[in-house]
């Protein structure tokens, strides 16, 4: 695709801290290259704001390779912007044309309180993982990798679930702010493997209990989470979680 530059109007959420009410600010950016990433465009804007002595926009980012799950912008009514199976850092400005107006908001959920501007506190996800998203491994000599036979289909399904980067786009997209796609992916990832078997029942019960404590809503299976997931985590992981929860809840 041929390179081009563009001028854009950005309507960005500004909020000093979690107590501040927050508001939209409008910014103009010029000479944005179509080769830039969305976050690089924000870097350009922030440098401009710093030069003007204004407060730059706070936003989360880390790897900028689409694998860490840190970036979290809700762009024009869609988490991570208009592209399918994509993170904000991998969204490129060729998705836009000269003169476009882009509205950028933070993830909205009570369980993800805004820290500043577009940065939200996603430590609720960490606490859900701490509640059960782990396996116990004995110390000593490493076991031969092939010692445990794993069904190929299950290994593939587990791997697909493990692709979840915990960015929270599912929560941001869900009308109920439900975290069930995230929790479903984490539960499925370990429930499908023999290594995850010892803690299997407690895991699902504890992770769901923690999820409820964090204030996420319940799943109504609208499918919005699956549609925006940058890693294409399947809704079937939610069904699997429900099955795991039922089995564990009836037994334990």
């Amino acid at each position, binding site marked *: 695709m041929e390179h081009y530059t563009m001028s854009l109007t950005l309507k960005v959420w500004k909020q000093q801290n979690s107590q501040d009410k927050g508001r939209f600010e409008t910014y103009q950016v010029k000479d944005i290259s179509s080769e830039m990433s969305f976050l690089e465009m924000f870097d350009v804007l922030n440098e401009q704001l710093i030069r003007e002595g204004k407060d730059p926009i706070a936003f989360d980012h880390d790897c900028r390779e689409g694998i860490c799950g840190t970036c979290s912008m809700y762009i024009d009514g869609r988490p991570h912007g208009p592209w399918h199976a994509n993170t904000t850092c991998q969204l490129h400005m060729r998705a836009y044309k000269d003169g476009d107006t882009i509205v950028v908001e933070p993830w*909205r*959920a009570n369980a993800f309180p805004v820290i500043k501007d577009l940065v939200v506190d996603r430590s609720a996800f960490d606490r859900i993982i701490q509640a059960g998203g782990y396996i116990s491994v004995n110390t000593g000599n490493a076991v031969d990798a092939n010692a445990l036979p794993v069904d190929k289909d299950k290994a593939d399904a587990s791997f697909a679930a493990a692709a979840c980067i915990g960015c929270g786009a599912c929560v941001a997209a869900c009308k*109920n702010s439900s975290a069930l796609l995230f929790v479903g992916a984490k539960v499925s990832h370990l429930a499908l493997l023999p290594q995850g078997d010892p803690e299997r029942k407690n895991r699902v019960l504890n992770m769901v209990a923690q999820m409820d404590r964090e204030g996420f809503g*319940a799943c109504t299976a609208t499918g919005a989470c699956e549609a925006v997931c940058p890693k294409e985590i399947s809704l079937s992981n939610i*069904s699997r979680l429900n099955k795991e*929860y039922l089995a564990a809840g009836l037994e334990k």
Partner: protein
Amino acid sequence: MKWSDFFTSSVGKKFVMGLTGLFLISFLIIHVGVNACMFADLSIFNPADDGTMFNIAAHFMGSMVVIRLLEYVLFLGIILHIVQGYVLEAKNRGSRSVGYDVKMGNRGSKWYSRSMGLLGTLILLFLVIHLAHFWVKARFTESLEPVSYRGVEMHNMFKEMLIVFKEPLVVVIYVLGCISLAYHLAHGFQSAFRSIGVHNKKYNLMLTSLGYGFTIIVTLLFILMPIAVYFDWVGYHN
């Protein structure tokens, strides 16, 4: 895990919603089946039926002990589904205090899957009207005319239906009620299976197709009932 913890968790609540939903779906099959007996009077079948098959089927439903007992279970299921539905709706709405400026809308989800609370409320309103029209009259008042078949006296529900569905406004309310039910089922049927943990890839397509098929057939049959009466496709011909 205590039972109370199971049923008060978000996943447990959805399990109850799914289970009661499927129970109500099974009731719809019986309801539509019994009511479809009125179509025996259509000219392509037996115009001399004059509601005989419908009245006998309705009498069977009203007089059989097992079915009368199941009626209590049905009301319990309906109440549980409604109360749990509103509890979940309130919790879900309360989980996002500050909304988005630009809504995601239909990008990624169907409008009716996001409107189950609203559709359920419309069905509830319709249900109140519907029960007042037929069930309350049949069970608690003596206002229905009797009719006798082979010496057995019973309510003439067919005649009552002919009276009720002659009102154009009632026909419109019933059609709208059934359309609300259709969209509620279009999402609810498959979602119920998901909530009770059915996730086998092999059955997903089958369940989805079954859900849409069930929704279309059941709703069309229900909608055709007031329409058939209003346009005199069924009625007394002698």
